[in-house]
């Protein structure tokens, strides 16, 4: 019976474009992209025990590759998407090889420094990225000849992609690979003594995480039809990390809830408060000080206590 809540949420999500207006449908698309971003990061933070502060770099690499090849080279959206995936995998391999020389806070500092370098490139490498002007004029793909230009159609497409990705993550973390990954998180030395290649397991997780963030980047750039360096700023990486921590790292539902909370906060609160960054900072403080385990485990604990 554990599948009933999931099925209800899915059904409600699928029916949304029939019930809500364009504003809500677009907001839901944004939430879905943030969910995929947070879920990809959760693979590292929650399951591999590697806290990265540079996840937005992968979103940015995919989005910029897709935008640049599509707009400046004029390739079709599908080819652009393929190139973006390849590029994201290549950058993930490079970053993973460097960052995984360390773990813990060293890993965090290296991922942060590297993603800031990508962010700096997006600003400075004007010949490719258009710098502060960003790249506009990106065309959404039309899979099987279906146009994705209406908010509802794009939402359904995004929902399909994100649900497939989440399903993949759910299978992955319950597989023997997931168990080994959790082993390298909790007891890296014992895992190494048992003959597991800890580095390779972490590297695989890093690649998968980067690839999924790249998929989120494709959805992001298709949704906005525009890309700007701010999409890969430290704030963007921090928002993804906040979504993971707030929802509950190392749980499947955590990043979904966390990302929804962060996007809704950002959209609704910024209508009343002008200063989103300051609020983001305070939310970080409050979550870490008062709800360190996250919303999903916290609520579970409260429900368990009630029984």
């Amino acid at each position, binding site marked *: 019976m554990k599948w009933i809540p999931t099925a209800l949420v899915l059904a409600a999500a699928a029916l949304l474009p029939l019930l809500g207006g364009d504003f809500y449908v677009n907001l839901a698309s944004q939430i879905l992209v943030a969910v995929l971003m947070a879920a990809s990061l959760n693979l590292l933070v929650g399951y591999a025990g590697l806290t990265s502060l540079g996840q937005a770099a992968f979103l940015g690499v995919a989005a910029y590759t897709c935008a640049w090849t599509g707009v400046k080279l004029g390739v079709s959206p599908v080819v652009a998407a393929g190139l973006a995936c390849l590029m994201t995998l290549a950058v993930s391999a490079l970053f993973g090889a460097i960052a995984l020389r360390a773990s813990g806070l060293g890993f965090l500092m290296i991922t942060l420094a590297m993603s800031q370098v990508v962010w700096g490139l997006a600003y400075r490498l004007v010949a490719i990225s258009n710098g502060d002007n960003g790249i506009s004029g990106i065309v959404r793909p039309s899979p099987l000849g279906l146009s994705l230009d209406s908010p509802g159609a794009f939402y359904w497409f995004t929902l399909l992609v994100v649900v497939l990705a989440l399903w993949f993550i759910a299978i992955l973390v319950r597989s023997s690979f997931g168990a080994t990954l959790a082993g390298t998180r909790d007891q890296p030395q014992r895992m190494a003594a048992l003959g597991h290649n800890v580095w390779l397991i972490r590297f695989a997780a890093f690649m998968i995480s980067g690839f999924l963030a790249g998929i989120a980047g494709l959805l992001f750039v298709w949704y906005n039809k525009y890309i700007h360096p701010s999409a890969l*700023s430290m704030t963007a990486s*921090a928002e993804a990390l906040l979504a993971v921590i707030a929802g509950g790292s190392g749980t499947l539902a955590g990043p979904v809830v966390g990302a929804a909370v962060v996007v809704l906060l950002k959209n609704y609160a910024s209508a009343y408060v002008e200063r989103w960054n300051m609020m983001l900072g305070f939310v970080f403080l409050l979550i870490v000080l008062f709800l360190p385990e996250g919303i999903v485990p916290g609520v579970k604990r409260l429900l368990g206590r009630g029984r």
Partner: protein
Amino acid sequence: MQFWIVQTLNSLALGGLLFLLASGFSLIFGLMRIANLTHGAFFMLGAYLGASLLRYDHDLGLWVSALLAGLAVAALGGLLERFVLRRLSRNPLGQVLVTLGVSFIIADACLMAFGGDPIPVPTSRALARPMFVAGFVFPTYRLVVLGVAILSALALHILLDRTRIGAMIRAGVDDPAMARAIGIPVSRLFTLTFCLGAGIAGAGGVLAGPIFSAYPGMDADMLPLALIVVILGGVGSLMGAFVGSFIIGFIYTFGIALVPDLAYVILFLPMIIVIALRPRGLFGRLAA
């Protein structure tokens, strides 16, 4: 020739500023195992405080305003350590997230208080005047910044290696549990070190003002440079921070001047090489 001399001087000045930023970061990380992501924001806050102090009273002078701004930022750092980070002493990830959150709060508060336009920080006329040596023009102020960085490095070296309190800090770095057991007030040292690191960053920000101006986003520009410096030099090592600062100062300055589009990638290279060959950094004793 003039180009190379001026760029060398710019590199040395940037290296000096980076040392003022990175030495505190490295000390805090070495002693407390906290990756203090607020450090870039402390630097920027110092620059803004210095700019407003000098604007409020022109006669105050750069040195007094650097001192005042440094003290103010040190006090803020002390409050952060004492009332927030202390509560999370068993949760290193939580500490990083809190420092990140506080850096967003400080950055946004600066934007609110000082606006979005860069605020230039004036220097006194004596410091602004160029120097003529052997027919070449030297910007005096850059030399002064370099001098300040070298003096601070010496002072920190003496403090850490020649004084009783420095010996206690080093003991705390090497083995906090044992240091506590033999009666060293480790938690008071934590607060002190945090204040010291934050204060140096704040004062460094004021000194950076005449070169960079105080501008929004300064924190996000400076923090990765500081991270790269300490990754390169080795966390917890003063010597590492010193050498790393000047390496990055040179690479960044010449990178911007010679290949402006790729300066960020070049910055990345020494870090990759060091991490590949010696993950603990050039002078580090701790694995990060």
